[in-house]
């Protein structure tokens, strides 16, 4: 379609006067929108009352577990699409990818709105989960490799900015959805489908801004006054590894384990943050204040919501802070801190309950959540250090399958362990202790995997074929074609 040719990579190469600080807002515009996926739970209660309006009608209205699948499908598809389309993203450049991501993400909302309006959850699974999930995967990886090309001197900080936006997306999406639902609510409608339509359109405009303002640097561009050093240190390669070759290296799978363990531990707790602080501290605190039981529940829920919001803020700030710090400390050292300090803090959480210190509990979880976010934000730069910039976006896409796995594993671990404990007579306030020790154990596995990461063997490095060399294999031909397209 020639009228869409303005989206092509070659049409988005920046001129010599372009200021590289213009690209992070483009990346943020996309990530702030797709990050809404972490705030989807704001629709949980309204979606259980679409027919009953005041109360859910059993057997007719949707249940929380049915609605919970929307999030799980979307995250699973995120990982799968990022892995499947990673090489296409590298070839097509950020503008086209962001545009397609915007189309998929907003179409996902509109299709889901239709599903909600006719009360068919399968359409919502297809809309938000599948179509929206593809938009998520494409949008997530679209700016990553370009950011690292614009900021070769500070790749950790650059990707940290974009991925910080993903953390902030839920913080914008949740209150926005609440405001819109209140606006559209009528005696006969919860205002959910109308909110989905409005959000789909708002996100499309915002993401379009990101796509249209995105620029890639010219192939020979480098920051003013910056000279690349041949090899700054052992763990930072100047060679390149293709995405297909990267998955054959032990380093890829060690980093997969690192990401999976870090995310499993964080994601499991993030979803349980509000009930956890209520059961461990708040019920007791408000009862001791002499409030009646109804007030206790109301106050605890409000304060629990505040705690969850505060964790989102730590998650957001951690993405920028830790990934920027990794430019100084090195990626491996950063992950040693996330996983080592994380283990200690998780193991100390039960102690905060025993001594009744809500301040320590909040501080410990704040640090844990900042490192959870930091883990996400630092991984693209870690991959660049290991495998070079040539196909880092595609490699990052494949690594995100670890996130999809963790998205299923984390909540399941936390929920089932807690249920098992309560069924065996453990008081609710203490039921989280074993979970915390298991999370600490997961981080130990991640710590060991990170410790084992060494530089990639030269046998995996990409070597350009010359005419004198033998006829390339079909996969090498494909790679060569893709690289030629990139250089256009």
């Amino acid at each position, binding site marked *: 379609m020639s009228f869409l040719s303005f989206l092509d990579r070659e049409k988005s190469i920046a001129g010599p*006067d*372009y*200021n590289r*600080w*213009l690209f992070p*807002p*483009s990346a*943020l*515009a996309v990530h*702030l929108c797709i990050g809404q996926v972490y705030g989807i739970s704001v629709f949980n209660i309204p979606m259980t009352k679409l027919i009953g309006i005041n109360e859910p009608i059993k057997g007719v209205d949707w249940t929380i577990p049915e609605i919970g699948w929307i999030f799980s499908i979307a995250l699973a598809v995120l990982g799968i699409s990022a892995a499947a389309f990673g090489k296409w993203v590298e070839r097509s450049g950020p503008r086209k990818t962001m545009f397609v991501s915007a189309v998929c993400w907003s179409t996902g909302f509109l299709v889901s709105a239709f599903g909600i309006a006719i009360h068919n959850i399968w359409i919502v699974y297809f809309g938000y989960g599948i179509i929206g999930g593809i938009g998520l995967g494409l949008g997530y990886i679209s700016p990553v490799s370009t950011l690292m090309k614009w900021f070769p001197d500070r790749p950790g900080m650059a990707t940290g900015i974009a991925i910080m*936006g993903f953390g*902030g997306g839920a*913080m*914008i999406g949740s*209150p926005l959805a609440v405001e819109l639902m209140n606006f559209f609510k009528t005696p006969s409608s919860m205002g959910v489908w109308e909110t989905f339509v409005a959000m789909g359109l708002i996100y499309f405009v915002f993401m379009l*801004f990101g796509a249209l*303002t995105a620029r890639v640097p010219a192939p020979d561009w480098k920051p003013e006054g910056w000279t690349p050093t041949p090899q700054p240190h052992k763990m930072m390669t100047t060679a390149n590894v293709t995405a297909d070759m990267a998955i054959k290296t032990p380093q890829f799978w060690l980093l997969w384990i690192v990401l999976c363990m870090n995310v499993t531990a964080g994601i499991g707790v993030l979803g349980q943050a509000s009930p956890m602080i209520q059961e461990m501290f708040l019920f007791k605190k408000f009862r001791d204040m002499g409030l009646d039981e109804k007030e206790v529940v109301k*106050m605890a829920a*409000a*304060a629990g*919501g*505040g*705690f969850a*919001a*505060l964790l*989102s*803020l730590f998650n957001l700030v951690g993405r920028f802070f830790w990934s920027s710090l990794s430019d100084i400390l090195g990626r491996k050292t950063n992950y040693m801190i996330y996983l080592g300090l994380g283990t200690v803090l998780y193991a100390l959480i039960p102690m905060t309950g025993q001594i009744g210190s809500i301040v320590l509990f*909040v501080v410990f979880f704040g640090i844990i959540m900042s490192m959870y976010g930091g883990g996400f934000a630092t991984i693209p730069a870690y991959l660049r250090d290991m495998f070079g910039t040539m196909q880092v976006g595609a490699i990052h896409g494949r690594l995100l399958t670890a996130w999809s796995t963790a998205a299923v594993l984390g909540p399941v671990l936390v929920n089932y362990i807690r249920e098992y404990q309560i069924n065996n007579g453990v008081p609710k306030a203490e039921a989280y202790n074993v979970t915390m020790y298991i999370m600490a154990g997961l981080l130990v596995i991640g710590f060991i995997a990170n410790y084992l990461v060494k530089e990639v063997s030269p046998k995996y490095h990409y070597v350009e074929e010359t005419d004198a060399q033998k006829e390339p294999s079909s996969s090498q031909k494909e790679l060569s074609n893709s690289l030629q397209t990139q250089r256009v």
Partner: protein
Amino acid sequence: MAQTLKTSEHKNRNLIKLIISWTIVGIPSLWAIWQVIVKTVVLFQ
């Protein structure tokens, strides 16, 4: 002289673009952070 004017014009245009771009992504972000602060106050009351 003409070259200096052209460079200065480019710089100004870039500055305006930077302000507009960062404002577009900054306003919703600041609104979100404000929402968090409001909610967090309840926790420590």
